[in-house]
């Protein structure tokens, strides 16, 4: 038995040795930029987005019988990013994935999983002509993602609960921190469990829906990291962190997660959300929107774009068709169809002029469209997910659970992130 164990162990190590040495050789792209033929694309699990994607694919296939596109929803996983990372490693990624988070792109570039769209025929020009100045979405000066749509984060509120708290739902006047806190106290005093309920969980992406929109507003769009260094260990960062710490300290927001949809259940009067949330409450809550607050109540402040991109993967054999389809699916007509179907804002210049009829018919979305002109996103940095996780860990400790000071949170998080970005 001992001999069998020894043989098994030796065999296993031999397998490891061969497995590990077989990884080298060859370039990263398995396809070519000119090759045409059938391709596969993945769509998000959002019902309206799937309907849009299916219609676009059908329209394409009707005119391109030799370059058939097959669309499917992204495979189930803890998150889309994890499913895509696994697919890159396994070499099973499709040609295009719609709805990828910009924060994950730098990691996939490091994995050798993404095609540099700038190297394709007219790639950079198409991206900049469609979306304007999107330099922030470039990784090492190249576009590995086409910035596709944005979901500017605003304060969404329940008009009925505002009215019951004595706040004018048509003009809440809560654009400064002081006014916001006063309004929040009035809401809780009126019997609502929480004034605002951001998820207090520790996932790396949660700062995008509490700290970050307010930080972008307070700094007129300074991203978390700029020029290779963190920016938030500053007066503005302190002001925003103190604001949220007060929210938790005064119990205007719970420090545990809601067990259901707090807006639908009426246990919160406000949440930070993008236009994707509007259809969710169409039949249940009469919602209003206001810009995120700032310390001085400035007009039309910058907010988090919560944008999503489309990326092409190196496992794609027919990259020529993929590039043609990517341009087709993001042309003016199909962007309009996306807006119509989902309410999400295509990242193109002159949005309200291009789709004037839509916004005239859907006034709820006008605030988001106007806000879409004034957004910033996550920075494209190395170790992006790890950096946001470090930020969240420190934020939770200081702001949500008050176990360390805001000053320590900012300096510790800044120090960790500076190290991660420099790696």
């Amino acid at each position, binding site marked *: 038995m001992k001999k*069998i164990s020894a043989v*098994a*162990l030796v*065999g*296993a*190590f031999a*397998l*490891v040795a061969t*497995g*590990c040495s077989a*990884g*080298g*050789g*060859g*370039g*990263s792209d*398995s396809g070519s930029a000119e090759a045409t033929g059938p391709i596969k694309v993945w769509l998000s699990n959002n019902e309206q987005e799937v309907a849009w994607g299916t219609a676009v694919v059908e329209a394409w296939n009707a005119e391109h019988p030799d370059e058939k596109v097959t669309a499917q929803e992204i495979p189930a996983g*803890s998150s889309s*990013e*994890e499913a895509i*990372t696994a697919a*890159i*490693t*396994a*070499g099973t*990624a499709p040609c295009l994935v719609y709805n990828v988070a910009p924060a994950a792109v730098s*990691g996939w570039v*490091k*994995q*050798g*999983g993404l095609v540099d769209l700038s190297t394709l025929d007219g790639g950079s020009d198409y991206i900049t002509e469609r979306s304007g100045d999107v330099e922030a979405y470039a990784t090492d000066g190249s576009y590995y993602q086409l910035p596709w749509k944005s979901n500017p984060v605003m304060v969404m509120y329940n008009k009925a609960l505002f009215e019951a708290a004595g706040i004018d739902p048509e003009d809440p006047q809560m654009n400064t921190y002081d006014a916001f806190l006063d309004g929040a106290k009035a809401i809780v005093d009126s019997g609502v*469990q929480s004034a605002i309920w951001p998820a*207090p*969980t*520790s*996932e*790396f992406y949660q700062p995008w829906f509490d700290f970050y929109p307010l930080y972008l507003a307070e700094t007129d769009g300074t991203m978390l990291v700029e020029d290779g260094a963190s920016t938030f260990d500053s007066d503005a960062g302190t002001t925003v962190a103190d604001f949220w710490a007060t929210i938790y300290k005064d119990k205007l927001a*719970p*420090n*545990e*997660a809601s*067990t259901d949809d707090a807006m639908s259940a009426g246990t919160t009067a406000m949440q930070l959300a993008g236009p994707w949330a509007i259809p969710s409450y169409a039949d249940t809550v009469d919602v209003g929107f206001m810009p995120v607050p700032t310390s001085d109540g400035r007009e039309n402040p910058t907010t988090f774009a919560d944008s999503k991109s489309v990326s092409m*993967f*190196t*496992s794609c054999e027919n990259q020529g068709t993929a590039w043609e389809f990517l341009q087709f699916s993001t042309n003016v007509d199909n962007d309009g169809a996306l807006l119509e179907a989902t309410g999400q804002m295509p990242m193109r210049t002159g949005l309200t002029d291009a789709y004037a009829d839509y916004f005239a018919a859907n006034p709820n979305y006008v605030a988001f469209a106007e806000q879409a002109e004034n957004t910033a996103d996550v920075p494209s940095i190395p*170790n992006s*997910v*790890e950096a946001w*996780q470090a930020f969240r*860990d420190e934020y*939770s*400790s200081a702001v*949500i*659970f008050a*176990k360390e000071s805001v000053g320590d949170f900012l300096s510790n998080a800044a120090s960790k992130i500076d190290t991660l970005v420099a790696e």
Partner: protein
Amino acid sequence: MTDNRRLRTRWLGAQPIGGLFALPYFVFVIAIFAYPLAFAVYIAFHDYFFTAPNVEVDRPFVGFDNFVTVLTDPRVLGSFRNTLVFLVINVPLTAVLSLVLAAALNTGIRWVAAYRVAFYVPYLTASVSLVGVWMLLFSGNGLINTILGPLAPDPSWLVNSGLAMPMIAFYVTWKQLGFYILLYLAALQNVPKELYESAETDGAGALKRFLHVTIPGVRSATTLVLILSIITGANLFTEPYLLTNGGGPDGASSTPVLLIYQLGIQQQNPDTAAAIGMILVILVGMLSLAANRATRER
């Protein structure tokens, strides 16, 4: 016996056909356990990250660098501390409760089948759904706090850094109890009835019979219960992830496996994740060995 036959017997055994039957399992063990384990060892000693197929990258040998990185990370040390808290509560509680309940269920009380089912149902039920029930019970405005009123802890159970990990330990103890009771019930069938009769004849009461007959009689089952509950505790993931929102208040219920997931899958650092895995395997091995020795028959 010829030399050739002797040599063949030496390598393949007296019944080589038996090896053929065992081959599928042998391949299974190599593919599912041995290869990934050996690969994890390789990853832990290299600067490693996953790439797309055929992407050539440098993955230099870094010795113990990954181990130094994780052992100097307060989050990692905290997660091991949290696991220790879990084990200190869960392992003894599991062993004691399951033995006592199994002994009670073995006495021929009425409705014994109903009790056995009642204890076993939580074990069979998916953790995700039971976690939902516990969240409703122990959330800030849950049933327990409603009953306790002003006596409810502040912050509440699952967001209280002092209570989050003990809550998970109690939850897992309750959920797994049915399985361990079943192990003890099986072991109790093998304790000779004559021993109980002799002890009773010698004047031993119920407590003495339990202490001097039952406990020594199920010693091997106790070893199994301890080792299995240690392994279960070391692999803790679902409960802290769901019950305390991915690691609890300020990481108070974070566990090594949760960090392995964060580092290896979310943050694409499989090398440091593998180093945590190696340390965990070694610690679990040491604890299991200690449990085995402590319960060994002398």
